[in-house]
């Protein structure tokens, strides 16, 4: 990136203080400020500022508490908020040159707060010297690393599969399917018994993508591992790739009536409730939601999870496994030594395990003592056999493709477009410069 001739919105170079003095009132305020701040805490020295998304609250708070038992003088100022708001706040703080020391960071590229996006702008501290970074398996490197340097800490990967209600399956007398064909049969059987086969809540934007993601590894990457590179070079397009196959299957499930009515009006919470209560038999979801499904169910053990069979050969099934949302350290942190010590602490095996367990993820490194969520047992062999593909958006070149995918799926389900049109929308977004 050539920043030499470009402006950097660095706080000290824009002459903002000069501008500020133009307004007499503002100058008076500025003059007053040292007096007033003498008695206030602006979060500066000593306290480690950490901003995360609400879903990280549980593991982070647990691990901060553990860290403080061994580092009693380390002080933290943490705050957590819903994803959209955190994104907005962090972008503003980064733009204002006042990023928190440690903040939420999304793996790979393809979103406004993704590792690649921020690393390119020079906003992240290099973590490559930490020992845990050597243990990140090479197929995960694109998620953690940019130009050979590690910038992201994440506990591991979350898989997408079918979360199912075992009692509903038992009522219909069916077993988890292992091929696409079996899946269609099982769904037909469930439907005949008056159970909604697959609950779908595409009113919530991020839910729209899950079925595509569950189908694309088999439809695209099992056949052509170089697909991402071909997309990047412009040789391949969504429209005439295996994506058409996957979207066709998505549509087929709807055409056969295997979803609840009105998926576009149904929220993620309603989807959860359908499966937890047994009104629906399963939902294609990311493993991170297991805790939510369990607390909504009468008996948490009623719920299980199996790889969603997108292909016809049970022995060669591919699955999506994406690195979970993690943390990064701001390049301009005034407490970077403390921040790095904390992240080093998070990189210890038992802490990786703790974080992974609390979000039902599979740790990026495992040892004999690692215990993953039992619901994920069926996924481990596929991961160890390298038949797991990162979530597709993590390699997309700009942040517009994913929202275009959301909209395309909703349009498809609403009958406002066809597979060709939906993928055309995505190709168009993919072609935009970031």
């Amino acid at each position: 990136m050539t920043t030499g001739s470009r402006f950097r919105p660095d706080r000290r170079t824009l002459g903002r203080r000069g501008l500020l003095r133009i307004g007499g009132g503002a100058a008076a305020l500025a003059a007053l400020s040292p007096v007033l701040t003498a008695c206030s805490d602006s979060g500066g020295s000593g306290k480690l500022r950490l901003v995360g998304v609400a879903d990280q609250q549980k593991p982070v708070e647990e691990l901060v508490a553990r860290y403080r038992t061994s580092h009693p003088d380390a002080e933290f100022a943490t705050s957590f908020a819903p994803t959209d708001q955190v994104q907005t706040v962090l972008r503003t703080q980064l733009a204002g040159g006042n990023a928190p020391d440690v903040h939420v960071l999304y793996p790979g590229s393809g979103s406004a707060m993704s590792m690649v996006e921020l690393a390119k702008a020079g906003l992240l501290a290099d973590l490559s010297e930490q020992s845990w970074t050597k243990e990140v398996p090479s197929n995960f490197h694109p998620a953690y690393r940019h130009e050979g340097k590690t910038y992201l800490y994440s506990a591991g990967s979350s898989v997408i599969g079918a979360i199912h209600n075992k009692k509903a399956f038992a009522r219909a007398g069916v077993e988890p399917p292992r091929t696409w064909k079996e899946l269609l049969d099982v769904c037909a059987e469930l439907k005949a018994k008056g159970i909604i086969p697959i609950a779908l809540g595409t009113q919530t934007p991020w839910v729209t993508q899950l079925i595509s993601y569950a189908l694309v590894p088999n439809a695209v990457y099992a056949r052509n591992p170089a697909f991402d590179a071909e997309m990047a070079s412009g040789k391949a397009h969504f429209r005439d790739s295996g994506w058409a196959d996957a979207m066709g299957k998505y549509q087929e499930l709807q055409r056969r009536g295997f979803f609840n009515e009105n998926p576009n009006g149904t929220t993620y919470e309603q989807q959860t409730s359908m499966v937890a209560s047994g009104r629906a038999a399963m939902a294609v979801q990311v493993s991170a939601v297991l805790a939510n499904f369990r607390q909504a169910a009468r008996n948490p053990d009623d719920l299980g999870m199996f790889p969603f069979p997108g292909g016809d050969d049970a022995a060669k099934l591919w699955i999506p496994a994406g690195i979970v949302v993690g943390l990064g350290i701001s390049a301009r942190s005034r407490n970077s030594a403390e921040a790095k010590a904390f992240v080093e602490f998070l990189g210890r095996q038992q802490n990786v395990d703790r974080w992974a367990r609390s979000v039902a993820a599979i740790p990026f490194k495992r040892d004999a003592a690692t215990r993953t969520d039992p619901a994920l047992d069926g996924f481990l062999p596929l991961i160890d056999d390298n038949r797991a593909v990162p979530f597709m958006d993590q390699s997309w070149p700009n942040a517009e493709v994913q929202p275009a995918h959301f909209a395309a799926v909703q349009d498809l389900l609403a009958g406002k477009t066809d597979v060709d049109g939906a993928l055309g929308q995505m190709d168009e977004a993919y072609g935009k410069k970031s």
Partner: protein
Amino acid sequence: MSTATARGPAKAKPGRTGRRPKYGQYALELLMIAVAVVFLFPVYALVTLAMKDPRQISESPLSLPSPPTFGNFGDAWSSASLGPALLNSTVITAVSLLLLIVLGSTGAYYLARCARGLGYGLYILFLLGIVLPFQLGMIPLYRLVDDLGWLGTYQGMVLFYTGIQLPFTVFLYTGFIRALPQDYAQAALIDGCDHRQAFTRIVFPLLRPITGTVIILNAVFIWNDFFTPLLYLGGSDKETVPVGIFAFVGQYVSDYGLVFAGLVLAALPILIVFVVLQRYVIKGFAGGLKG
């Protein structure tokens, strides 16, 4: 002048149409109650959700809670640190309101009485503040507050809310001051009062109804604002109520029983203020024009 004297001894309850209640009045009352019931349906949803655990919400979100769980209120109170958060919200809201009333009413007094040339230009300039999207100045303003060293402080938030809500406040006050009879103020000026005295003794008391409105509408905005406190106060010990409550809203895992219980608790202070103000405003009108 006729209106002045007509308004003076207004003691009758506003809108009272007769001594004896009439059938029409009962019909109106029934109709209004019916409308209220329709309005209350989402409120009912809010309160019932607040009294359920995640499993109850999942099974039947809007049925009557059986048994109702009151634990959510206690949990929300402690895990969102609502005690300190309520104090922070109260301080920030109250001080901002005070400044808004003082700056807004005095500014509007000038703008309403000087409706040509500079006055009109300034009025339009203030109106512009209601129109501008908040994104426009967000980053420069953030840097300014940072430069002042006011991140994580009460004064940073008070400055922000006073500035951001002034256009709206000035707009409300100006509209109503224009509608006020000028005679009192003029009389006072002729009697040798200066404008400051005329304003504080005559005009401002006449503004009670709209001051009540200014207080309640601004209070609602400031009290509920989530984004700015998260941006300016996040991680500090000055966090406000919405910041505490929103921390429960995850993408994957949320406990909406807790969220809605927190919301109910957060709404109560504002509702109490509203009830008190409504009384004050009405009394204020009836008794405020003794002269």
